[in-house]
């Protein structure tokens, strides 16, 4: 290398690099660059980039330093980058700007150098299209720039008026030209690649966020619809104090309760738990609730209702889903309840007089498993101030941080303590005891409680 290069090269090089870094940073952060890169750019955005990259090409010429009348320069860099990131239109036009400017300067290598710059943008654009309109990896981009500069040097050797001068120029400036352009490409590609990746990630995040937002909104609507499936008010039942609560673990759940008024002043009481949680359980819950309610109308007893409901639900369930249902009919005389327990958690009765607990065991299988299953029907007599607690396993299987279950015994303890309260208050007591027990542990399963208290003689 000549002494001219040795002395001033580094300063020149440093200046050039600073300009490239600033321009790369600026261009890659424009919205136009991203849009055009993604193939969605408008004419204005493309024109803007053509001017920027064309100017960069002119800067490449002006910032060069002369050796034997041939400037070492990075004129091709702008069009090359424009080509591989924004396609042949932007690349090609930027190249032509640089080429026309170079042509106007004249000199020994005027023709081959202008021609090379004019070609550079199209070459980059071809690579962009061949690479399916994606950016090359940084190292491939660098290799491409280096190869293109070699091609540029070959053009100088081919098109000249004096082959000896051409050879000596190529010998002297060839190395630095290839090196600087490749280095410039490295800087540009690295900055652009990082930024394009950032934008892509953030767009993906936004899309994901939107989708999540939409799903949340849908679930909220589903939750509202499901709330309407539960009785809006508990109808007053002569001789009884009835209250209920249902809390799904997620937005929607598989538990439900129902109070079915019959014309003869009898009332049907239903509590049910669909296996599973969330959307599948909620859909199955809707099916089950409507089926039980509509079959209940056709039967005097509970066993017939469960038999028919089971057949209907089994017919609709292929996935192994099932629903446990406790269905009781309260006599209007207010003392007797007939019931069928289709695989549901046995409701607990607290006998006021004896201060003892009884349970209402299953006398049939959960619904939805096997058509033609037989269902039993039993009866239970209620005395003044007796309490029946109907619940789903979300209550007894609620766990605390040590994975201990709330359990039936704790539930019984709360009932015993709150035996003199109204049904609604007893539910609040159970809820409070569960919260104290579970503390920070999130609710894992749907929770449903229904409490029926026979009123005392003085209240009747």
């Amino acid at each position, binding site marked *: 290398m000549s002494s001219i290069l040795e002395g001033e090269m580094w300063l020149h090089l440093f200046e050039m690099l600073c300009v490239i870094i600033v321009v790369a940073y600026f261009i890659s952060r424009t919205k136009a660059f991203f849009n055009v890169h993604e193939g969605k750019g408008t004419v204005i955005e493309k024109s803007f980039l053509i001017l920027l990259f064309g100017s960069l090409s002119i800067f490449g010429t002006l910032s060069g330093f002369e050796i034997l009348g041939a400037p070492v320069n990075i004129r091709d860099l702008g069009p090359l980058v424009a080509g591989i990131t924004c396609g042949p239109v932007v690349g090609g036009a930027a190249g032509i700007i640089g080429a026309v400017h170079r042509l106007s300067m004249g000199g020994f290598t005027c023709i081959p150098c202008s021609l090379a710059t004019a070609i550079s943008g199209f070459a980059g654009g071809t690579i962009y299209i061949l690479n399916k309109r994606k950016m090359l990896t940084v190292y491939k981009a660098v290799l491409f720039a280096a190869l293109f500069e070699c091609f540029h040097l070959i053009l100088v050797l081919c098109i000249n008026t004096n082959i000896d001068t051409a050879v000596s120029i190529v010998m002297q400036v060839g190395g630095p030209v290839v090196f600087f352009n490749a280095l410039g490409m490295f800087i540009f590609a690295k900055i652009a690649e990082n930024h394009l990746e950032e934008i892509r990630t953030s767009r993906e995040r936004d899309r994901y966020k939107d989708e999540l937002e939409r799903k949340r909104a849908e679930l909220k609507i589903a939750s509202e619809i499901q709330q309407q499936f539960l009785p809006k008010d508990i109808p007053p039942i002569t001789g009884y104090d009835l209250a209920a609560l249902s809390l799904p673990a997620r937005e929607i759940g598989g538990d439900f309760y129902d109070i079915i008024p019959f014309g003869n002043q009898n009332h049907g009481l239903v509590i049910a738990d669909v*296996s599973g949680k969330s959307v599948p359980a909620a859909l199955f819950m809707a099916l089950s609730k409507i089926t039980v309610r509509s079959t209940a109308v056709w039967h005097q007893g509970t066993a017939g209702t469960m038999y028919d409901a089971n057949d209907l639900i089994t017919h609709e369930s292929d*996935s*192994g889903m*099932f629903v446990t249902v406790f269905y009781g009919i309260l006599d209007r005389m207010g003392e007797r309840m007939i019931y069928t327990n289709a*695989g549901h958690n046995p409701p607990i009765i607290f006998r006021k007089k004896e201060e003892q607990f009884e349970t209402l065991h*299953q006398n*049939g299988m959960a619904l939805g498993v096997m058509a033609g299953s037989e269902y039993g029907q039993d009866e239970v007599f209620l005395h003044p101030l007796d309490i029946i607690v109907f619940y789903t396993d979300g209550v007894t299987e609620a766990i605390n941080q040590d994975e201990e279950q709330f359990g039936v015994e704790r539930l019984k303890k709360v009932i015993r303590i709150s035996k003199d309260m109204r049904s609604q208050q007893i539910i609040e007591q159970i809820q409070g005891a569960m919260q104290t027990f579970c503390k920070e542990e999130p609710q894992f399963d749907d929770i449903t409680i229904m409490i029926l208290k026979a009123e005392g003689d003085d209240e009747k």
Partner: protein
Amino acid sequence: MKIEKEEIDGAVIVSITGRIDTSGSSEVSDALKTVIESGMKKIIINFSHVEYISSSGLRVFISALKQLKGTDGSLILCELKPFVYEVFDLAGFTRIFVICDTVAEAQKT
């Protein structure tokens, strides 16, 4: 959760270790699906190392039973701990499953 499969005399013995809760049940479900799809007619489930089963766990076995019924296969549950038996019993499912005390007894059926 650990699931081991062993084939003896034309029956597959599936031994499960762990809690069959919501997350465990999908593993069991996949394992049973593989066995059923392989065409095995007799499946014996060994529950001796299962301490807990939830209602979603029950669903897996109901689903397997339904699939096997369609192909004349059989599903036998054995060595159920009292708590696990109670969960099956509460839902009324002890009446549709063949339940044996030991694996040896299940093999004879």
